[in-house]
């Protein structure tokens, strides 16, 4: 039922998607200090792919995603969320205690918190994308 193929939508989607994805990563990384964060960034990224889905359809979007299945993103996201739990354990602290390391040359503060937020990002992106893509696929099958 979703008709793809208007020129404006197609062009907009093609140009917007990389920008939107870049923006979502920006939101993700600055989320700890300014408005943003994993949830919002994940939703923005999902919005980018959804726009592309509407413009070009499921198979084209799958090509863009290459080998990555949205469901794998969910899995990786949850895994990262879980992984960020353990460093504290090795340091002898309670689970989920945040650990901070400074990467010297670029003066970038890495932390389990960031890993956790990336996990949230991927889980949100994967979940939303999996839902929308499945729905659209089923839609395509049924006239």
């Amino acid at each position: 039922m979703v008709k793809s193929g208007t020129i404006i939508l197609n062009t907009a989607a093609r140009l917007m998607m990389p920008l939107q994805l870049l923006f979502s990563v920006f939101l993700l990384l600055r989320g700890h200090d300014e408005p943003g964060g994993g949830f919002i960034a994940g939703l923005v990224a999902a919005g980018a792919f959804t726009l592309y889905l509407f413009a070009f359809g499921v198979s084209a979007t799958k090509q863009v995603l290459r080998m990555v299945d949205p469901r794998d993103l969910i899995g990786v996201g949850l895994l990262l969320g879980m992984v960020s739990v353990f460093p504290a354990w090795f340091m002898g602290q309670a689970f989920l205690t945040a650990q901070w390391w400074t990467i010297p040359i670029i003066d970038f503060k890495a932390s389990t918190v960031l890993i956790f937020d990336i996990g949230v990002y991927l889980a949100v992106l994967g979940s939303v994308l999996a839902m929308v893509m499945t729905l659209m696929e089923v839609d395509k099958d049924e006239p």
Partner: protein
Amino acid sequence: MQLAVMGGFILAGMAPLLHHWFGARTPLVMAILPLSMAMWLMGQWPTIAAGDVLLLEWAWVPALGITLTFLIDGLAWLFAMLITVIGALVLIYTGDYLKGHRDLPRFLVVIVAFMMSMLGLVLSDNLVTLFVFWELTSITSYLLIGFNHTDLTARKSAQQGLFVTVAGGLALMAGLVMLGVAGGSWSLSELNAMGDVLREHDLYTPLLICVLLGAFTKSAQFPFHFWLPNAMAAPTPVSAYLHSATMVKAGIYLLARLQPSLGGTEMWIIILSVVGAFTMFTGAFLAIRNTNVKKLLAYSTVMALGTLTMLLGIGTEGALIAFVTFLLAHSLYKGALFMVAGILDHETGTKDVTAMGGLRHVMPKTTLVACIAALSLAGLPPLLGFVGKELMLESVLAADHFDMLILMLAFIAAFLTLAVAAVMVLKPFFGKRRETPKTPHEAPTGMLAGPAMLATLSLLLGLMPGVLDSLVTATVEQMGVAGPDVHLALWHGINLPLILSLVSLALGALVYRHWDRVRARLARLDPLLARGPEAGYEALMAWVVVFSEWQTRVLQNGYMRNYILVMILTLIALIGNSLLLRHAPQLAFHLDVQFHEAVVVGMMVMGALFATIARSRLGAVVSVGIMGFSIALTFIQFSAPDLGITQLLVETLTVILLVLVLFRLPRFSTLSNPLERVRDVIVAGCMGGMITLLVLTSWSIDQFVPISGYMIENSVPLAHGRNIVNVILVDYRSLDTLGEIFVLALAAIGVFAMLKFRAPERSVKQGAAAKENADG
């Protein structure tokens, strides 16, 4: 040691993998674990023998005072030794008993998990962890009884065992919680030091009753004894291990453990000694009626458990010494006899003793082992069973309460047990050779090793009981007797117990001689026994089913809106009650509204209201969308940028979702009559009004200091983040967030599964379509 136990659970989980690698030798490989634990325990022996206590602490849930602390003293050491040594032997035995069985890996998983639970149970110093391990043994026992899950009786017995022990487990939980509250500590060793406080405490009576219910159900005391013989549906290694040597002794262990803190009162003595004595009698009495070799043994186990409980009830120094000796003796001979029973079943294909005979010619080694173990069961010299029985009779003679009653029951039980022992050995192994369903051979080495070793121990320890002095001393000391005077000996001189033994020997021989006739006589009692506790259990279960059917019909009538209505009305009643009656709402406020804010809120409300009266799906979706965007604006106006962005994005995605799905659904239709609508408007109005009141009240009541102050203060110094909302999400409350992304992932997987996994239906449709095409 904690690590070893936890590692044991992991090893249990790896059993299928190990089976892949080692094949039929897996049980032997897995037996290394309990054996090495036994070695370790042996290494600790000097400490224990010196009367010291080994305390291994490991915080688990420190906030609740739950620690995984292992306490190894004499009592725990004795039980741990029994569990590991018999466990290793049982594993070796299993290797041959279940050779080539399809489900061997599954069996190993559960039995090793059980072994570790049981170890955890006897080593725990913390009431909570003790209870956790207690329940784990119940569950693993359930899985093991129901191992032959294709067999209806096995399933039923497993369920019965589970219900009885878990019902007791619930009582035990209540009891342990009361114990913890009364003593103000969750540590067994601390509780044991404050016995006087506990015995005087108001909660003592309910606490004791609950704990005893737990222990009695687990240890198959009358009137809960019926599940144990039924549990014989399990494979024989399980019967030998769980249902004679270890699990059923968990209740006994608990009682022994709590003897210093709860024991010694009138109530304790009376309940334990009477219930124990009665169980002992019931077990022996019911045993003699059976011809099934495993049931014979099961009932005699009931008898032994009764004896142990009774000895704890008597509680004198002599009784406790007898308790430890009898416990050890019983575990050794009963484990051996069960394994022999398994050999008989395995080799002859029948469990009926009357169908076997003259097996000594084909399996001489098994015969020898069986004879030794049975002599110990019968309590004849020179075996450990004799020492135990003599001590038991001696302490019964010295009992303060009901000594005549107990003595009589003990005496009857003694000579009936003797007859049982005779039946167990003489019927299958001696006499005329009989044809059996399978042609018997000598048992394989693996199956013979276990019983042989246990029987040898029975014999050696019986000849030199003095070896056990230090162990018994260390154990009895932990049960509240300071500096006991322990001298175990085979020969106590000619005294009253010995005379009683001799008389019981004669009577037992008599019963054995006329066993067929005795059984025929006892068969007349069947109608009476059919009304026993087991019938009560069946009736209760039937009643539970009837009751749940009735309440399901009443409460779950299948009308969605009735459920919702009931929930809403309950909510209104509960919140309304506390809102209006307990906190009179204070509605002092000032209205400070700016025009643009009011417009946004107005749009929000209009959107919601229009959604309720919209006649088309599109109208409803649009009005919900308007509401959603107005909410996003409100968020942004009132200092929540993160929320505003999220709401906007979600609102967009929601519209897409609805476009994709909602328009595949039917058009709006009006199904309810006007009267129902009026009712619903009233209910909805009440709820809305109440929520308004609730929100207004919540501002006027200031009961707590909000915790967000802490979060704001520490956001930069501790969490290195300047967006506090995000810091809360990923740092302060990250566990919640973790749970939330899991929920989201589950929802996505659910959507995927619902839409994709319907292949059969689709293929039917496609098939039909293909057919049509072909026809066309």
